[in-house]
């Protein structure tokens, strides 16, 4: 991939993504951190496009920037104002050390290794003409078990999230108390 457009696009988008991630660390307010995260997600979608992964790119925008970000925002809105300052925990120093060490290790391996990769003509030959159809065939063909398990997982996650935050409404609570009272009367009688 040596055309100027892709090279410039890659470096700009990588810079945007990493700047977004740094913003998540350095932001003073939790909501600012979420907005930096959204910038990082959009930069990542751009990186997917440089890799000819058009379906994954729009799925990333749709799911991450469009849905998960809104979920994060709602969670921040429903939790207190006190801890919205994006402060660091006690483990920031060892955490930063671990993160930086991991990143340094991966960067060193990435730069130094002799990757078994395609280049030149073979790379241009793999051009993914129709990603959505092929991914669809894979999902219901070869990976159908994982697909079904993922759909069951989504169902359980949805039900679990609803059950977890469901508050007993007043009439439900009153009905429960009436039931307990009736059971108590039956025992007494």
């Amino acid at each position: 991939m040596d055309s100027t457009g892709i090279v410039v696009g890659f470096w700009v988008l990588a810079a945007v993504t990493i700047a977004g991630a740094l913003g998540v660390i350095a932001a003073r307010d939790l909501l600012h951190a979420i907005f930096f995260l959204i910038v990082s997600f959009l930069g990542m979608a751009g990186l997917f496009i440089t890799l000819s992964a058009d379906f994954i790119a729009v799925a990333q925008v749709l799911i991450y920037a469009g849905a998960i970000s809104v979920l994060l925002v709602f969670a921040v809105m429903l939790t207190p104002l006190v801890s919205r300052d994006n402060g660091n925990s006690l483990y920031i120093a060892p955490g930063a050390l671990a993160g930086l060490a991991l990143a340094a290790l991966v960067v060193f391996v990435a730069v130094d290794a002799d990757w078994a990769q395609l280049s030149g003509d073979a790379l241009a030959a793999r051009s993914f003409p129709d990603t959505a159809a092929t991914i669809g065939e894979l999902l219901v063909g070869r990976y159908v078990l994982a697909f079904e398990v993922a759909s069951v997982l989504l169902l359980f996650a949805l039900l679990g999230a609803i059950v977890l935050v469901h508050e007993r409404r007043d009439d439900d609570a009153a009905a429960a108390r009436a039931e307990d009272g009736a059971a108590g009367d039956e025992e007494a009688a």
Partner: protein
Amino acid sequence: MTVELGHYVAVSGVIFGLGVIVALGKRNAVAVLMGVELMLNAVNLLLVAFARFGAAFANDAAALSGHAFVIFVLTVAAAEAAVVLAMAVLVYRRRETVELDRITLMRW
């Protein structure tokens, strides 16, 4: 100059490291979830980069299994985010806080 697989792996590693810093170093539970999402994003980038550049695939459809895997990661990330945020709201209702330093009931 060209852009090769090594560049994408490096970017993925950097974002993963930054995600680790956020996940380990932030006080708010929602911020920790943001770190986890960054880590999952980095892994997605890695998968898609190998699907594009990897020499071990027989044909295009085999290479796109990387993309199918990314779809699964996106799905699981969304489900996990929903459940984790529901739990964070629930913890806030019981404990009046979502800071991980204060939620120490199960600590030694």
